[in-house]
């Protein structure tokens, strides 16, 4: 343990980790998940994400969404399996059960409803469902770790208005839920039914009215608090800013289209994309000049953020490289069904992502100080150091 080493993880002062870093980390894991159908690797990714969420989740309403995303993932797997069973073509030899087959007209040739269900195709469906579920879990982890409001607060000045609209929409959602409950209560108090379609339709208008009234109140409050004050900017700068932004968006769209569309030579797509990005960035810069806003306590992007991002990038890059060099390592055999193996290098890369739970500082919160002292067990400190 050296004195000059920067304090990381539990030994650093509690602060918010830059939400961008968590998103890079989570998207890295999701990318890794998209490259493999090995159930062990996928389970490992979910476990790593869950463990980091457990360690670095702040105490806020939005940070409880991880479990919701996990459940959503299970639903996805279930739907996937169900569709395969009903619509599958019965490829493979191990028939598990045979569903009654529904004859379909000639023009629907290639689609079969019912028929034999094989272990091979079910296994494949489970694996593919797991990929989606794992990616959902990664998104859920980012949602739980990074405050959506803080993420939007870090958007560039030119997109500030869009950011505010999203933040307002997000704070409105829980209030809307409250409104629905209140209206349903009122229906009960009036002696009307509080269930069924009629009750739902009857409560739409009052809820919308309430939301509209609140929106007007909020607009008045925001106006009174200086929202939309603009700095002195010449008309020329303003117009060229907007023009460049528009040009940038068009360039990026065309470039991406050209790159993805196999028919267009890459020599056209790439330059379009680069020029579009450049125009967009300059346009944003110019448009951002109009705002006079400043940021209160912006989340810094320092060493922990670099490390967290790297923890996510390593598995992504590793799995991409492995999938290119040796595609079969990451694919689990389904025909014939076989026990999945554990490829060592990808597994190690995924485990590395768990380090994010050590290097990221604790989020601030009401119980921060006490928790900090309680969790200062020597074993954790050694690992962090």
């Amino acid at each position: 343990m050296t004195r000059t080493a920067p304090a990381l993880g539990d030994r650093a002062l509690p602060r918010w980790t830059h939400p961008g870093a968590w998103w890079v980390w989570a998207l890295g894991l999701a990318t890794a998940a998209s490259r493999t159908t090995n159930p062990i690797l996928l389970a490992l990714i979910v476990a790593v994400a869950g463990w980091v969420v457990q360690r670095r989740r702040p105490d806020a309403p939005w940070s409880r969404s991880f479990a919701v995303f996990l459940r959503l993932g299970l639903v996805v797997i279930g739907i996937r399996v169900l569709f395969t069973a009903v619509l599958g073509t019965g490829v493979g030899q191990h028939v598990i059960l045979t569903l009654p087959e529904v004859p379909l007209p000639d023009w629907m040739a290639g689609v079969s409803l019912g028929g034999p269900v094989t272990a091979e195709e079910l296994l494949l469906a489970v694996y593919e469902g797991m990929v989606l579920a794992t990616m959902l879990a990664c998104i859920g982890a980012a949602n739980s770790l990074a405050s959506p409001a803080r993420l939007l607060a870090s958007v560039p000045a030119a997109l500030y208005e869009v950011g505010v609209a999203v933040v307002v929409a997000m704070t409105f959602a829980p209030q809307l839920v409250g409104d629905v409950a209140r209206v349903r209560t009122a229906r009960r108090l009036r002696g009307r039914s509080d269930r069924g379609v009629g009750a739902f339709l009857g409560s739409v208008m009052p809820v919308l009215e309430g939301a509209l009234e609140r929106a007007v109140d909020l607009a008045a409050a925001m106006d009174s608090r200086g929202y939309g004050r603009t700095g002195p900017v010449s008309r020329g700068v303003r117009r060229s800013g907007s023009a460049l932004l528009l040009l940038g968006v068009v360039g990026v769209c065309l470039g991406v289209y050209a790159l993805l569309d196999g028919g267009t030579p890459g020599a056209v797509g790439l330059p379009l994309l680069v020029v579009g990005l450049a125009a967009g960035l300059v346009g944003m810069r110019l448009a951002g000049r109009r705002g006079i806003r400043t940021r209160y306590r912006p989340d810094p992007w320092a060493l922990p953020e670099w490390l967290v991002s790297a923890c996510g990038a390593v598995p992504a890059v590793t799995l991409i490289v492995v999938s290119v060099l040796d595609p079969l390592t990451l694919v689990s055999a389904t025909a014939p069904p076989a026990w999945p193996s554990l490829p060592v290098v990808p597994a190690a890369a995924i485990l590395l992502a768990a380090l994010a739970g050590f290097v990221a500082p604790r989020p601030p919160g009401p119980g921060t100080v006490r928790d900090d002292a309680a969790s200062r067990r020597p074993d954790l400190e050694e690992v962090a150091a």
Partner: protein
Amino acid sequence: MIRFEDVSVTYDGATAPVLAHVDLHVSEGELVLVVGRTGTGKSTLLRCVNGLVPHFTGGTLSGRVTVAGRDTRLHPPRELADVVGVVPQDPLSGFVTDMVEDELAYGMESIGLAPALMRRRVEETLDLLGLADLRQRSLLSLSGGQRQRVAIGAVLTTHPKVLVLDEPTSALDPGAAEEVLAALQRLVHDLGVTVLLAEHRLERVVQYADRVVVVPGDGEALVVGTPADVMVDAPVAPPVVELGRLAGWSPLPLTVRDARRAAGPLAERLAPLVDEAARRTRAALHVIDGEPALTVSDVVVRHGSVPALRGVSLAADRGEIVALMGRNGAGKSTLLSTLVGLHVPQRGTVSVGGAAPATLRGRELVRRVGLVPQEPTDLLVADRVREECAASDRDCGVAAGTTRAVLDRLAPGISPDTHPRDLSEGQRLALALSVVLAAQPPVLLLDEPTRGLDYSAKQRLVATLRELSAAGHCVLMATHDVELAAEVATRVVVLADGEVVADGPATDVVVGSPMFAPQVSKVLAPQPWLTVSEVAAALVAAS
């Protein structure tokens, strides 16, 4: 600091101006209280100060409003954000962010202050308003008083010279209201902020005001003066002032402390009359003994993992008016919702008119118990009063015209073509009450009925409640309004932390309680007087 010169405001589509030829000058560091009935233009007056009228609301403003030398005609609200801070009536509706600290910084970010300065001011404001412990909390998790203080803090950070507040304490329990007013008092004294404040609950604020502005409405001229001058013949006055008028004290006391110093002779005159008055009060009760109208025994209700009621037992007879008091979050609203079957108790039993409310549906329910929620508008569904009444007749299964008849008794003269949202607060409450009463439920529950009501509307509510009690209804109302409880309640039940901590006749419970004692009781303690009318009746009977 604020100057109105011959200001008239006419909203689009209105035939008469809301404000006509208003001249008003508020100098720096003053705390000015704006009073008047609902719908007289108080809010319009306040909204003129930062230019929301007419920039945001539309309408025509003639004359001139200047704040710190800036003309509101040339400066829209956002350009005045650094001189005027406006705290909206419902703080939650004005919050832009989701966390206390971010909310405090929002205004400063908008006007582009340097990060270091912002940081310092947020810390200063957290200390000034006692919010330091809440800095990382989500705004939705705060109590009413905390939210109000955050809303004040959020506009204070830009260091405005003027603070405008619209009914800052109307939704708060007495303790939280004191918190907010103490914070305001501090701003006026220490920072020299000019405060313009509208409030119906005069008894809470009049003692802090330097001057009072009465907005009479109907385009009449404003009455402006010191609180003592204005209160001498104001149509509405807090109980302590009315007591002063009755006893002929001069100068008129505005605070309980002043009144108590003057109250010696009155207390001597009243001392022999106490027993006689108590007998009269008992005789005036309409309590019908027999089967209780509602019983709650040992009820436990949880919200998620948080217990809201921990073993509450309560019974009320027909003819009783029970006031349910206690701080925000003590479980008052939960108890009322449990009585209409919105919560199923985890333990214990609830019975209203001989049935468990959670098992009742539709007309079965509304014929046994009626609840007017905190926001009476929630109960209203139609676009016009006429349709509302017709819908209510159908819902309750009563003869057509029943609801309208009840409404005409409670608040005569409401046009059947009015939209319920265009009614005054008092009229809206009357309409919601009629909808509930049309089914003739023996048990009536009210949640914060006086929120937003002016004094005259409150007087009408008091009369209505007495009539209902005389007609054999059992009324249970959750309220923060100690004066209302003193006026009508035959019994007071105090809840704290989901438990009943006091239950008894109003005199026994509120006299001597620092939070729940009405002003008259504070002045004349230890004698058990609660209201000015009681004192007046005793004096008349004795002479």
